[in-house]
């Protein structure tokens, strides 16, 4: 009986001594966008490159056949400027997109990396090949559902 009690107590102590990190497995925060033309989802046949306006960092490089985009937003800026460059055989079309947003620090545990969630407040753009952009879901967090609907001009694809 004493041995059993000792075993049970040892087991409880071992369980209590174990520590687990409950970090979210999918912890990428990105803004999901889908291309639309005449109300239907489309693929871009041309080569698409996206850079951030201020830093000039390449966020998407020479992607062909893009239909859905996953783009990171800056942690601290209130406005992110993205430059969309579409290159076909003859020319390059450029559009600037301004994402006006608020940022919120998100943390789970000291052992897990902290990140920032965002709320998209407004989206503006030029109209070289992008016709308009609609906000479908303003919250940018761990969810992988679309945030923006990018409507491209009829003659662009």
């Amino acid at each position, binding site marked *: 009986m004493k041995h059993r009690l000792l075993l049970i107590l040892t087991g409880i102590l071992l369980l209590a001594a174990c520590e687990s990190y409950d970090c979210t497995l999918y912890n990428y925060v990105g803004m999901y966008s889908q291309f639309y033309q005449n109300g239907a989802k489309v693929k871009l046949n041309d080569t698409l490159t996206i850079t951030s306006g201020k830093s000039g960092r390449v966020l998407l490089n020479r992607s062909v056949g893009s239909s859905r985009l996953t783009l990171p937003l800056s942690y601290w800026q209130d406005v992110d400027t993205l430059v969309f460059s579409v290159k076909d055989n003859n020319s390059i079309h450029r559009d600037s997109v301004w994402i006006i947003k608020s940022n*919120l*620090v998100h943390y789970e545990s000291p052992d897990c990396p902290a990140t920032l969630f965002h709320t998209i407040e407004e989206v503006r753009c030029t109209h070289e090949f992008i016709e308009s952009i609609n906000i479908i879901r303003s919250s940018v967090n761990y969810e992988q559902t679309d945030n923006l609907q990018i409507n491209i001009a009829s003659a662009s694809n």
Partner: protein
Amino acid sequence: MSKLTICRLTSLLLLISLACCSLQAQEKPKPKKEKAPLLSGVAVSADIVGFAMKAFGAKFANMEVGARINLLDKYFPAAELGIGDCHREGAESGNRFSTTSPYMRFGLDYNFNKKHNGNRLFGIFRYGFSSFKYDYLNDSFSDPVYGVTRPLDLSGEKATAQWLEFGVGVETKLWSIVRLGWSIRYKFRLDLSCPEGGEPYFIPGFGKNDDNGWGGTVNVVFDVGKTAKKTKK
């Protein structure tokens, strides 16, 4: 009636009376029931585990003292006040969480031991509450894509938590008014209100933040009380 008959009858009566007396002598005495007074005492206690953890530099500790009233040596309304302390740094993330805040618990201990021999076996119930502030810091928090590094400083985040505890405990008399006991408790969180950004890593009095958890105490108790009186049934 002859003298012989009278003598026989007398002898028979004597024998019967003797037998009755011996039977009465063999009967067990009536058991006496121990009865404790309504207010059987008061006690103060301290959980030595929390203080020891703090002294040995543990990353978290709940340091608490308690008081209780002894009613009939069976019901023990109890209150516990403490300070929860946690300072933890993530091994790889560089995030630091810290809090030092008070908490309180109220509840009842029920003594299952019917004998008033100084030993007690408790069933424990507690309601716990803490309103606390915590800091979440990272000196070199960097944006991996845009490359901007800025300190993350969330100081003085406010939160409140409520929880229930159920458990068992034992306690025995060591010397005079000094008693020693331990308890093991299962805790489950009722409510947690905190800022939108994230939940605290540690709740004072509850432990590591989760829906439920285990806890325990090792108590030194100073118990001043009346002894149980033995009364006839």
